[in-house]
């Protein structure tokens, strides 16, 4: 027995046409499949695609921002290293260190620091860590031993080299957070002393203060010991906070930088971050931004669109239901009319 053409249509077009004919008589199904469902799918897909694109673009921007800030910090630190090298290369300076001539060293530091006003302090120590001279404030530290300080140990560790210290509180004076750049002073192949210059963290912050992460984002700097060097939301000063457990700090950062999405903050919300190392200092710059701020513009467009679609769907459903009721009523009327004369 040959199969019926009605039950097994031959072509797709015939099947579609058959479905459409049947669907016209059932408007609820017709609107659901041809209007409501496609609209919902389009809206959902638009949202998903835009969220993914917005997130990817924001991560890229954050990565670039972190890289830019890292370059600014690295360049400024490099200028400082060059300044130190120039000072350490002066024969007068080397001679004063060799002769342990404190007043002469102080005068040389004074003359040099006038050229670089961003430096808050300069210290010259002997290779054993004894302070020989300090400028601008003596503060009674000349003769003290700084061999255990991070700047000294870092410069000495693995052979004398230039080193950027971690952040710490200034032990004398204003008790502000400071960082040091240390540079060994050599006479031939022999290290005869260590020159260290100091920055306040406010100065470090000012280097990249013009970089904005909008909307709702910010930049912060973490040192090689996972301590906050600068953070825009410090309420009260004190010893630097260790933030090893913060996701952008916990993960290893490659030389080219990285991006990440993590959940955190007080409200445990999604954050996007770009992380970039500052040269070989061990420092890293983090540019962070809450995801909801990134997607705010998208949501401000999609929410009204969603509401409009919902309104349209509601109107269509109402019209369809009215149409169905009307059809039923007509059918009943026709049935009554058919039965009437027979009765």
């Amino acid at each position, binding site marked *: 027995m040959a199969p019926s053409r009605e039950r097994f249509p031959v072509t797709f077009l015939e099947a579609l046409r058959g479905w459409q004919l049947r669907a016209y008589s059932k408007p609820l199904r017709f609107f659901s499949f041809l209007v409501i469902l496609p609209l919902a799918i389009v809206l959902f897909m638009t949202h998903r695609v835009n969220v993914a694109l917005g997130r990817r673009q924001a991560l890229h921007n954050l990565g670039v921002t972190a890289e830019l800030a890292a370059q600014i910090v690295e360049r400024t630190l490099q200028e400082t290293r060059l300044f130190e090298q120039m000072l350490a290369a002066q024969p007068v300076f080397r001679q004063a260190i060799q002769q342990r001539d404190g007043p002469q060293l102080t005068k040389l530091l004074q003359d040099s620091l006038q050229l670089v006003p961003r430096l808050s302090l300069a210290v010259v120590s002997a290779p054993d860590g004894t302070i020989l001279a300090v400028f601008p404030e003596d503060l009674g530290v000349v003769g003290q031993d700084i061999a255990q300080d991070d700047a000294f140990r870092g410069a000495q560790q693995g052979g004398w080299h230039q080193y950027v210290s971690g952040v710490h509180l200034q032990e004398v004076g204003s008790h502000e957070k400071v960082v040091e750049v240390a540079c060994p002073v050599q006479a031939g192949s022999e290290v005869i002393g260590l020159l260290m210059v100091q920055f306040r963290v406010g100065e470090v912050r000012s280097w990249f203060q013009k970089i904005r992460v909008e909307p709702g984002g910010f930049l912060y700097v973490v040192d090689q010991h996972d301590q*906050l060097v600068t953070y825009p*939301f*410090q*309420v*009260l000063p*004190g*010893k630097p*906070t260790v933030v090893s457990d913060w996701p952008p700090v916990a993960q290893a950062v490659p030389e080219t930088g990285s991006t990440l999405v993590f959940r955190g*903050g007080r409200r445990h919300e999604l954050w996007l971050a770009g992380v970039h190392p500052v040269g070989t200092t061990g420092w890293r710059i983090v540019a962070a931004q809450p995801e909801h701020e990134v997607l705010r513009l998208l949501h401000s467009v999609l929410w009204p669109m969603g509401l409009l679609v919902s309104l349209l769907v509601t109107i269509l459903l109402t019209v369809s239901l009215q149409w169905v009721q009307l059809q039923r009523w007509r059918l009943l009327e026709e049935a009554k009319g058919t039965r009437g004369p027979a009765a």
Partner: protein
Amino acid sequence: MAAFRRGQGDPGTGRVSDGGGRMGRPWVFAAVALASFLSAAPLWAGQHALKSKARNYPNTPVTLEQSKVTLVETFATPLQAGIPGTSQSRIRDANHPGGLLPAAVMLSGEALCVNRSAQAIEAIKLSVVFLDAFHQAIELPGQRGAYVVKQIVESVPRKSSKVIAWEQRVETSEIYEVAVVVTGVRFSDGSVWLAPDIELIDIL
């Protein structure tokens, strides 16, 4: 002077007579009253609420909640109103012929202090931080560091709460936000709790 007509200037004084006599037109008084009302409006702007945050160190025996801060600009006379954007008044007076009188700016705050410890409290040390609109601490003249310390002598029984108030005179009215932190507590038995010497940061 009856010979002078309406609107004609007085040659002796240079003044112009309205010709209507004193209090002749009620709308003039209405206009004057309205102008006085409008010009007095800045007086009411001399006081406004600032954004305020109570921050607490972890494991602090006392927590602050519901912090409120009001900035009050006080002028030398009741009629003085400040020039917008400055801390100076519009009024010159005989005692200060060379310049304008500066306004005195006073911050007054209050917060609910909750004693979470098992002992009664005798005094509290508050650190008040003044922040600008960009969340940068404002260093006030004559103040060491970017915050001031206030000592509040107020007894708070164990496991109870009390509203504490503080006041601070400042030199600028450009303070946007104030953060208040408890950094020390003196208990009734004489023992003292001090906040750890670690920077306090705002986790967003």
